[in-house]
């Protein structure tokens, strides 16, 4: 479970996140939506422990900066995080060794699913941006994290990889993981989101659960209604 309580992140006087509260339960997919500059990526970086903040963030009951929390966390950043001078398979070896994880089979399966098996000996710098993104996703998932945070994961991915990633979202949920996805591609999460948090100007403008949503409205309609005050009527 990811628990965020009273999180405020300031840059000087500017509040990028203002007193945010929410949780992502085990076996739940939460999506973080909002226009550019709403504070989604900042919030994600606070959760992953990359930024300082006021408030409390817990990963399965552990403070997010603790070693226990880091063991449980998987993070796919906005920009692919790839080492230029390591091959694809060395990236996986690096992650497995760093997280002291022995299960290489899962990582191999991920390579297969993202059609990266034949790229195993390619260096990070030789990969296209889309392939770097796939590798970044594989690295974040290779150690089987219990809480996974995706920041714009679909950017640059080909249709096959998008399909696989969508399946992975569902698999993670079915296996009891807490999944938080920040995205602008509303249709990409339309089919399987459980909770939608819509951010505007650093605060949550609305939080909706999938079962509570008026079935006649799509996620997209709800988004525009809240962020722009518009409806189709």
């Amino acid at each position, binding site marked *: 479970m990811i628990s965020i309580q009273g999180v405020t992140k300031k840059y000087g006087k500017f509040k990028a996140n203002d007193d945010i509260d929410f949780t992502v339960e085990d076996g739940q997919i939460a999506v973080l939506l909002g226009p550019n500059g709403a504070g989604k990526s900042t919030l994600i*970086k606070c959760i*992953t*422990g*990359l*930024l*300082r903040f006021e408030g409390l963030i817990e990963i399965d009951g552990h403070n997010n*900066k603790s*070693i*226990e929390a*880091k*063991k449980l*966390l998987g*993070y796919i*950043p906005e920009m692919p*995080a*790839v*080492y*230029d*001078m*390591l*091959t694809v*398979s*060395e990236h996986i*070896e*690096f*992650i497995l*060794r*760093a*997280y*002291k994880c022995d299960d290489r089979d899962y990582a191999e399966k991920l390579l297969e699913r993202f059609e990266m098996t034949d790229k195993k*000996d390619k*260096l990070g*710098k030789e990969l296209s941006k889309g392939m770097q993104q796939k590798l970044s996703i594989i*690295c974040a998932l290779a150690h089987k994290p219990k809480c996974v945070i995706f920041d714009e994961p679909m950017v640059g991915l080909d249709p096959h990889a998008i399909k696989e990633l969508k399946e992975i979202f569902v698999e993670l949920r079915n296996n009891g993981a807490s999944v938080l996805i920040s995205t602008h591609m509303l249709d990409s999460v339309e089919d399987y989101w459980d909770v939608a948090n819509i951010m505007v100007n650093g605060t949550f403008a609305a939080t909706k659960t999938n079962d509570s949503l008026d079935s006649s409205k799509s996620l997209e309609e709800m988004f525009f209604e809240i962020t722009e005050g518009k409806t189709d009527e």
Partner: protein
Amino acid sequence: MNNPLVYVLATRFKNKLLSIVKKPGQLIFILIFAAMFIFTIFAGNQSDGLFYNYRDFNELLSICLVLFGVSYSLTSFSGISKGASMFSMSDVNLLFSSPVRPIPILIYGLIQQMGTSLLLGFFILFQYTTVHNFYGVDIKFIIAVFLLYALVSFCGQLTAMVIYILTSSDEKKRNLAKYSFIGIIAAGAVGIFLYALSMGQENMIENVVTSASSLPVMFFPVIGWTKMILTGLFAGETVNILYVVIGSLLMIAYIVVMVLLVKVKQTDYYEDVLKATEISFSAITAKKEGKLGEVVPQNVKVGKTGLGSGNGSDVFYYKHKVESRRAKAFIFDVQTLVYMAVTSVFAFVMKNEGILPVLVLGIYLQMFSVALGRWVKELLLPYVYLIPEKPMKKLFNCLKESFVKIIAEAVVLFVIVGLIMKLEPLEILGCILIRISCGILFTGVNLFCDRFFGGISLKALTLILYFLFAMLFTLPAIITAFILYQFTYTEVWLICVISAVVNTLSGILTLFISRNVLQYAELNNR
């Protein structure tokens, strides 16, 4: 304003000025910079009368020759290897596709490059106090050196761009051009050195100066011509117009020929420049992001794959070893090798002057090379923050490879220097220990600056702070050495060992203060 190129240049310049006013950080930096420059002039002039015996002015002109030579060859060499471009990615994307003729765009690039070149030589202005005190020159001289340095850097960039464009279709041709270029410069340097040697080994400094001041040297392309202008302006009681005119004409002719060479390729230069721009753009981005020093080589030999070892945070050490092997920097990278060569040559020239000047130069250059460690690059990706280990442990493992290099570098360099200067084994040991302690200290100070000033967006200011704190933390060792030398009868090698211990303790203190640098990525928001 009908001409789009004039509009872009003027608007960018105007916005640059406005951004200085809007960003207090930049304004403070410029004010500090101006204050330091004024202080330098003031301090230089204050000491008038303290130094009666000025050194030989030709010696200063020879130093300028070396400065111009290093600038010209390094700018050109790195440009030919990695792609030199006078254009930014936005120029390529917006201007190259626009209905503007290629030649005006080239001129636009040249003007832009001149501006950049001017910025490169600002450090020269701060040498005023030293050169004024030792050689009795006035502010006009230092401004002339600054402008000529900018001109040499500009010619270096231009040469690199021309060679890159003319040889871009063929890797072999480019390599041939690259090594021929360096061969010609090296031949010039060896020629000066051999001529100096032919005068005997007794007064090596004087001989090198005499050799570098000879007439043929002044006709060496670009480097010699700039020295000719400088000599014409300042060497005699009155200005030697002939030298100034010949030197200037040769420089102008060189620039015109280079531009004509680009024109020969006509519109074709777009494709070549595009590639060079992409490469140099990645280098600039890398620098902006703090990936100091390393631009990923174009052709990397993967070799043996696999990290082989490591569990938990020590995997960083093994990863760094693999990365360094592929970057062909397994023990020493090119920059370190250049610095070692410079120090060794300096030791040869100064062999009768004692070890201190060589030690000081070596340590000064080390301040730059330490900032290039692989650990710096680690701060830019999220893994080092996310991996579940204690920050101090991760930090140690990230620094491990750098420490191995620091030790290897110290041993190799001072064994060579020791042999050149015929030092006692204990003196060599003392120098090695001093060098290692400085390596640890500078690494610590680098981290310290990242930890406490990493958020400053103006990187030049961070660099100044790095130098200031490096000097501050080195003070205890310098004071210790001074007291021991001045008030006790301690042998030199023992002073070195004791100072190295003090310096190491300062280094450990900086590392301890900065131990949480891997706690948050925003501390290293480069």
